[in-house]
């Protein structure tokens, strides 16, 4: 699913200014280029995670950046681990 900026704002519940700031920090990386930005479900879910961190957990902006960087590394490793598992399963002799 691809949605535009307005739809993204209403689905994620964040405001214009906040979105610009998050994109500036590269917390969110939509595809396309301004003003024709295109968002997908993962961007919405990531925006909710950022809101959880800020609003529910009281993490400040510096903290969010640190957490997202670690989260991205964590998921990068999980993904690689999944691919390794796949490689091992399909090529047991190697």
């Amino acid at each position: 699913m691809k949605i535009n900026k307005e739809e993204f704002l209403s689905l994620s519940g964040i405001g214009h200014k906040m979105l610009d700031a998050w994109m500036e920090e590269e917390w969110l990386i939509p595809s396309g280029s301004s003003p024709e930005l295109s968002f997908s479900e993962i961007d919405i879910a990531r925006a909710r995670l950022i809101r959880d961190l800020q609003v529910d957990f009281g993490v400040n902006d510096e903290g969010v950046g640190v957490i997202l960087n670690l989260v991205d590394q964590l998921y990068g490793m999980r993904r690689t681990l999944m691919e390794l598992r796949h490689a091992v399963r399909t090529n047991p002799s190697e």
Partner: protein
Amino acid sequence: MKNPYEILGVAPTASADDIQKAYRKLAKKLHPDLNPGNAEAEEKFKEIAGAYGLVGDAEKRKRFDNGEIDAAGAERPRQNYYRDYASSEQDYPYTNNSGFADFMDSEDAFAELLRRSAQAQANRSGHDLAYRLPIEFIESIAGANKRLTLPEGGTLDVAVPAGITEGQVLRLRGKGAPGSGKGGFGDALIEVEIKPDRSFTRQGDDIYLELPITLTEAVLGARIKVPTPTGAVTMAVPKGSNTGTTLRLRGKGAPKHAGGYGDQLVKLKVVLPKEPDPDLEAFVSNWQGGKTHNPREEVTP
């Protein structure tokens, strides 16, 4: 459901501040996105989020304390978590492999495996995108060049091959979603939907058509024009043809997989003039054969 105060580990008399602190302490440990592999954490997180949704809100807490609402149904339904997407096969721009880059630098077999999988990630090809393309029956037999307008904008030119059947999927290489790195584009998968035709139907490689003819053509025979999906052809109707007589036009059907063509089968239907015709009535009333001939001989009463 347990008492929300118990879930959060606070006394029912706790201040709003204490409740928030208790919630944050637990939520930080249990948030599903921060515990991607831990199903138990997700269950517990749902529980504490539900409890906090109830007693973390002054208004709802008052109603809960007064017994106006209970703990059931307090769980906040939540759409998918970030981890559901970040763990999927799909591409997304947030992956970061720097966490184990040092592992890839060594010369052992494990490093080789890691390097390969990182490369596969970097050069993953794009997804296939599926579309539906409605076409006319005639286009399905004769083939056509169609332009598909895509829901996400843009168009796609599709060469529909002659003889395509309902539900067949055409693959346009490289017309799908973009990949990452050198991965290239995915494919567009186009499912063909053939609109029913008023005259023609198809069975296998043969095409069926019911064709009205006049009484004169039926009795005396004639050469008539017959439509086929690839244009009209002339066909000889033999003398004495009847309703239900089926004539075969060889090679005028759908193209076959193995080469060659099926046939078109033309089922004749004798049609009298719409308006009553005095000459015809006069002829038939004097026609002796019409009175002795019994077409219902074999129809049991």
